[in-house]
C-alpha cells in the first residue's frame, strides 16, 4: 500500500512505528515522505511528486501553530486535496495544545487565544470534512486528553528537531493512524465471541443463580452493565456477536432473557454455543455457521487458561488479555482497536436482526419437504439498481469484505465506486433482496465496463449470507438483460482464483458463458432465463 506523509513538523519517526501495526493487519507499505513543510505545494502543484507517487493513503500532519496560521485557507486546502486525489484516503489529525501557554486561566477567556483557536479549528475540521467523502479526521486531541500533554510532548525533541512528540507520543499517534488505515481499508474484524460467567456478569450463573450474579445499574455490578452497553454499541455499528460458554444452556439463556440488567438479550447474538464442549471447536463451529473467517474473530474470556487454549488451537483468532479487575472491563472494551470504523452504513445497523432472520430461514428449510418448495415458500424478491450516493458506501464495503462468492476479488474504496459511477463507460449495479422473513438489503454488486458493443464484467459478487437460493443466477441474468437492452451484444467475464473463492469456479460456465482461453464469453442474445422462484425488478 502506498502511503504519503505530508507535515509541517518533523513527523519522519512515525512511519516505522505505523508499519509495526500495519504488518499485523497484513499490510506491506511503501512510503513517500514529503520534504519538510512542502504539503501545500504537494497538494496544489499539478505535477507534484505526490501526484506521481499515486498514494492510496495520504497523512496530513499539521501542528497547532501551522493550523492557526493557515486556518483561513483550510476549506480550500481540504477541498482541493479531496478533488486532486479522489481515490486516496486522506487522514488529517486535529490539533491540541501540547505546550501550555502562560496564564492559562486567561487562555479560555480570551477570544483569540491559542487554546480557543485550537478548539475552533477542531470544530471547523469536523464540519469541513462532513462533505468531503475521502477525508478522515484523526482525533489527536482525544489522545492528549487520554494520555496528557506532559506524557506525549517532549520539549527537548521539539527544540532539537521540531519533533512534536515524545517516544510515547510517537507510539500512540502511530497506533491510532495504523488503526485508521486498517479500518479504512476494510481490515476491520467482523465477529466478537463472548464468554458468559465473569465476562458478561460477575459470578457463575450455574452456581450463584440469576438473583446473585453481579450485574446491575448500581454499585460494582454496573461495571458489567457498562461493559455490555459498550458491546451493544459495537453490535449497532455492524459487529456480529456470538456466545461461547461452558454452561447449562437453559439456565444461561434464562438469565440472558430475563435478568433485568442484561443488555445483550438472545436476539442480539448471531450464534450461540452454550454447552460443555471445548471452546475451540465451538468457535470453529460458529465460524462455519456464520460463514465468516476465523481471522475476522475476536474472543473475550476472563479465564487466562481458556484464552491460551483458543490461542494455541485457533491461531487466526485474536484473543486479547482481559484486565484482572472487572472494573476495568468498560475501559478495556473502549480501547479495543479491532472494530474501529470511521462510519457505518444502514446495513451495519441491521446486521444483528438479519442474522436472527437467517436462523428463522434455516428452521423453515428444515421443515419444508423439498428444497424447491422451500425456495418457493420464501417469496424472494430482488431489485437491481444502478449505484447512487445512498448505496455507494455499501457497494464499496461489499467489494472490500466479500471473499467467497467473488469472481475477481477487486477491492474498491468509496471514491473508486463513485468514479466508476460517474464514468459513462462504466456501469455499477447493486442487487437487494427480501423475502417473506425479512429484508436482506444490498447483497450483490456487479461492475461492468463498456467497450463498443462488448461489456466486460469487472466485478461480480454476492454476499455469503444469501447464497444457495438462486440469487446469484438471478442477479447475473438481470445484469445481462440490462446490458442487452443498452445495446450490448457480448459480455466477457473472468474468474480469478483465490484461496477463498473456490465456490464460484463453475458459476460462469453453468450460466451461459463459454470458456475462451483465459476468459469467459456470453452471447447476450442467448442469455439464460430467470429462475422461477424469484421475482426480479430492474431499474
Amino acid at each position: 500500500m502506498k502511503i504519503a506523509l505530508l507535515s509541517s513538523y518533523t513527523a519522519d519517526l512515525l512511519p516505522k512505528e505505523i508499519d509495526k501495526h500495519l504488518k499485523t493487519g497484513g499490510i506491506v507499505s511503501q512510503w513517500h515522505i514529503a520534504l519538510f513543510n512542502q504539503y501545500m505545494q504537494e497538494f496544489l502543484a499539478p505535477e507534484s511528486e505526490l501526484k506521481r507517487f499515486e498514494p492510496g493513503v495520504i497523512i496530513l500532519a499539521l501542528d497547532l501553530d501551522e493550523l492557526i496560521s493557515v486556518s483561513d485557507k483550510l476549506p480550500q486546502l481540504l477541498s482541493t486535496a479531496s478533488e486532486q486525489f479522489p481515490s486516496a484516503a486522506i487522514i488529517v489529525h486535529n490539533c491540541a495544545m501540547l505546550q501550555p501557554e502562560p496564564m492559562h486561566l486567561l487562555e479560555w477567556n480570551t477570544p483569540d487565544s491559542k487554546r480557543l483557536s485550537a478548539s475552533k479549528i477542531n470544530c471547523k475540521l469536523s464540519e469541513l470534512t462532513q462533505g468531503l467523502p475521502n477525508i478522515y479526521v484523526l482525533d489527536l486531541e482525544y489522545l492528549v486528553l487520554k494520555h496528557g500533554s506532559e506524557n506525549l510532548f517532549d520539549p527537548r525533541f521539539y527544540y532539537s528537531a521540531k519533533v512534536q512528540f515524545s517516544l510515547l507520543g510517537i507510539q500512540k499517534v502511530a497506533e491510532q493512524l495504523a488503526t485508521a488505515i486498517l479500518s479504512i481499508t476494510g481490515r476491520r474484524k467482523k465477529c466478537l465471541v463472548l464468554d458468559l460467567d465473569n465476562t458478561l456478569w460477575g459470578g457463575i450463573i450455574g452456581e450463584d443463580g440469576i438473583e446473585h450474579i453481579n450485574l446491575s445499574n448500581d454499585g460494582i455490578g454496573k461495571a458489567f452493565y457498562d461493559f455490555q452497553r459498550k458491546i451493544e454499541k459495537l453490535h449497532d455499528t455492524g459487529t456480529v456477536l456470538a456466545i461461547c460458554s461452558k454452561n447449562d444452556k437453559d439456565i444461561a439463556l434464562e438469565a440472558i432473557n430475563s435478568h433485568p440488567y442484561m443488555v445483550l438479550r438472545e436476539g442480539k447474538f448471531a450464534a450461540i454455543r452454550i454447552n460443555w464442549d471445548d471452546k475451540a471447536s465451538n468457535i470453529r463451529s460458529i465460524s462455519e455457521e456464520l460463514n465468516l473467517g476465523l481471522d475476522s474473530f475476536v474472543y473475550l474470556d476472563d479465564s487466562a487458561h481458556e484464552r491460551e487454549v483458543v490461542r494455541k488451537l485457533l491461531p487466526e483468532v485474536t484473543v486479547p488479555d482481559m484486565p484482572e479487575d472487572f472494573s476495568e472491563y468498560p475501559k478495556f472494551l473502549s480501547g479495543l482497536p479491532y472494530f474501529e470504523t470511521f462510519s457505518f452504513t444502514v446495513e451495519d445497523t441491521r446486521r444483528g436482526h438479519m442474522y436472527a432472520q437467517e436462523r428463522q430461514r434455516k428452521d423453515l428449510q428444515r421443515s419444508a419437504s423439498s428444497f424447491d418448495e422451500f425456495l418457493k415458500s420464501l417469496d424472494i424478491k430482488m431489485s437491481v439498481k444502478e449505484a447512487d450516493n445512498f448505496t455507494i458506501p455499501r457497494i464499496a464495503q461489499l467489494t472490500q469484505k466479500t471473499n467467497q462468492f467473488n469472481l475477481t476479488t477487486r477491492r474498491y474504496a468509496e471514491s473508486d465506486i463513485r468514479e466508476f459511477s460517474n464514468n459513462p463507460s462504466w456501469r455499477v449495479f447493486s442487487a437487494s433482496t427480501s423475502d417473506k422473513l425479512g429484508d436482506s438489503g444490498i447483497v450483490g454488486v456487479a461492475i461492468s465496463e463498456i467497450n463498443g458493443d462488448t461489456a466486460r464484467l469487472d466485478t461480480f459478487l454476492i454476499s455469503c449470507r444469501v447464497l444457495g437460493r438462486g440469487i446469484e443466477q438471478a442477479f447475473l441474468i438481470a445484469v445481462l438483460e440490462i446490458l442487452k437492452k443498452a445495446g450490448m451484444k457480448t459480455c466477457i467475464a473472468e474468474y480469478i482464483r483465490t484461496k477463498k473463492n473456490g465456490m464460484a469456479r463453475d458459476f460462469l460456465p453453468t450460466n451461459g458463458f463459454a470458456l475462451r482461453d483465459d476468459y469467459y464469453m456470453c452471447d447476450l442474445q442467448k442469455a439464460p432465463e430467470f429462475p422461477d422462484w424469484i421475482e426480479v425488478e430492474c431499474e
Partner: protein
Amino acid sequence: MCDVFDYREPELPENPDQGSIDKWDSLEHLRLIMVVESEFGIKFQTERIPHLTSLELLLSEIEKAHG
C-alpha cells in the same frame, strides 16, 4: 541498537558510531536516544543529545546516570 538500526547482533560493527552505521542519521539518532532513555529510565540533557554519537559515549552516560 540492533532494534533501532535493524541489525542482527553479530553483524553490528566493532565500535558502532554515527560514521560506521549507514542508517544512523540525525533523525534515527533521535529515535535511538528516545529508545535508550525509555529502556534505561534516564533523561539526557538537550545539549548533550547531539554529541552522543557512539556506543561508547552512550554507555558512559548510562553508567554516570546509574551511579
